[in-house]
């Protein structure tokens, strides 16, 4: 019998298997929902699929009476703008600081410990200070997303830089590279694909912080809507919104993975062929 490590499912099996856990989740939901609705037809916690469908139609495909907007799309655009901004700042910061800390002993001595400490501060606990410093507008939302994932990305990249074989850095020096040239030609280019992994890993946290920011002060956005309807336990709206967020984040994750494979053909984990 072939060992499990060596058994590769074929394409259709793979597809089937990939859908299996999702199917199970949906089935579990359906059963739970049916049971609760049988008990209390007005139960709001696990609405039926019809109710979910209605809510989706209402939010996504019916113009709002007041403004004429399609709420889901307005919320999506608002949230995506914010998360893109926050993640972009965090990425740039994480790359710059991570490479410095990973490569330069002086930067490591100065920022290494500080970064580890800062990464542990729960940003939600010091919200009042953040809002005073950055106002209540879009900036504070970027900042919260940034504060949530920036230190993580920086630490992750610093670890990845430290994993580069010393031989490479020495080799570059024998080829005449200055510190700056080592950064730009040897270290940074090798960090791009790793940065993508890092961003992928932090995407979940980024959404979390965005939702938290939108729950405090804003007038649109996916997090705002979830917060707003939460006090009515409108799970028929919340669940599609959560699914939508998950889908968006997952698509972005997938996009990053595809881009990584396309743009950096030289970057394949050692065991990728397995």
């Amino acid at each position, binding site marked *: 019998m072939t060992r499990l490590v060596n058994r590769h499912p074929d394409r259709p099996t793979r597809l089937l298997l990939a859908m299996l856990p999702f199917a199970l989740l949906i089935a579990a939901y359906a059963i739970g929902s049916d049971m609760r609705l049988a008990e*209390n037809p*007005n139960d709001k*916690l696990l609405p039926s699929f019809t109710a979910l469908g209605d809510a989706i139609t209402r939010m996504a495909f019916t113009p709002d*009476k*007041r403004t004429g907007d399609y709420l889901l799309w307005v919320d999506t655009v608002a949230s995506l703008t914010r998360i893109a901004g926050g993640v972009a700042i965090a990425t740039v910061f994480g790359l710059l600081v991570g490479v410095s800390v990973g490569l330069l002993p002086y930067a490591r001595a100065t920022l290494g410990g500080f970064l580890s400490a800062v990464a542990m501060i729960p940003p939600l606990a010091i*919200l*009042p200070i953040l*809002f*005073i410093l950055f*106002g*209540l507008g879009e900036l504070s939302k970027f900042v919260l997303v940034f504060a949530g994932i920036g230190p993580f990305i920086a630490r992750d990249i610093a670890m990845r830089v430290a994993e580069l074989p010393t031989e490479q850095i020495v080799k570059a020096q024998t080829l005449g590279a200055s510190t700056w040239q080592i950064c730009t030609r040897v270290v940074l280019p090798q960090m791009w694909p790793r940065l993508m992994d890092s961003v992928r890993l932090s995407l979940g946290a980024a959404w979390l912080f965005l939702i938290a920011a*939108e*729950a*405090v*002060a*804003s*007038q649109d956005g996916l997090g*705002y809507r979830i*917060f*707003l*309807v*939460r*006090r*009515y*336990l*409108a799970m028929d709206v919340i669940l599609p919104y959560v699914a939508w967020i998950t889908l968006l984040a997952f698509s972005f994750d997938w996009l990053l993975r595809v881009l990584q494979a396309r743009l950096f053909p030289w970057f394949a984990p050692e065991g990728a062929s397995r």
Partner: protein
Amino acid sequence: AAPSAQAAEKTSFKLAWSIYVGWMPWGWAADNGIVDKWADKYGIDIEVVQFNDYIESINQYTAGAFDGVTATQMDTLGIPSVGGVDSTALLIGDFSNGNDALILKDGDSVEDVLGRDVHLVELSVSHYLLARALATLGKSERDVTVVNTSDADMIAAYQTDDVTAVVTWNPLVAEILSMPNATKVFDSSDIPGEIIDLTVVNSETLADNPAFGKALAGTWYETMGIMMSDTEAGRAARAAMGKASGTDLAGYDMQIASTKMFFDPAEAAAFGASEDLKTTMESVRTFLFDHGLLGDGAPSADVVGIEFADGTVMGDESNVNLRFTTRYMDMAADGAL
């Protein structure tokens, strides 16, 4: 940013409001140009900023980022006033008349709460309501266990078997009461006039810029006039406010029904000048003092002075940080705006 909001004469102002039945008019007034209209009249700018998180709006006001905020009288005393921000209750919008309630599973009187875990937002008006409810039995908080539960999670919490008693506010009360096996055993209509929803402004700013107060009062009562009317415009306004708070016209009307809205400025002014208010504030500040919320070194409930419309001061006269005034409501009533 902080200190500038409290600087002397200026022309642009910021008001923070949060989503709650009695404060929805601010959002609607801003959306429909009423705020701008009145601001223009007095040659100033007013920015009205919506908060989803009530506490954060008060915090931001206390930290100086805003000139005015919507808050209950209890939170105004406990947060900005204790924090040294001299605040004036510019407008008395309403008092809770059933909006806050103690709800039990398997129980139909206040006695049944004894010995239970009571889920509520600690140190909020819900907490105060519970204390008052227990006081009617001659009992105290020692006879129950208070479990802090965030308002956002209250409904979900009630659905679990762990939770058999909650104190909360609307629209959460209505949602919970719509569930099977939920009985309201005590609510704010049992202590009428003790939970008051205000529009509060920084006293210094107001003193230096009466125009700010006038513009706010003008806006508020024009809006009141529209929304109270039983016309198409009034229904449309209430429907929009309901929508903005996540429900619809019927839901919003139901919330208003358990709120004593002061649509009429004269009525509000009369409430603000009444002696009952002093009794209420005495009870509220005692509650706050008992829970250590008047400052840590506070020797007694007197540390923060409260000035009433008639000029009398309760507590330390040299540290008056909460002022009730009927001046602007009177002006509205007199049509002097």
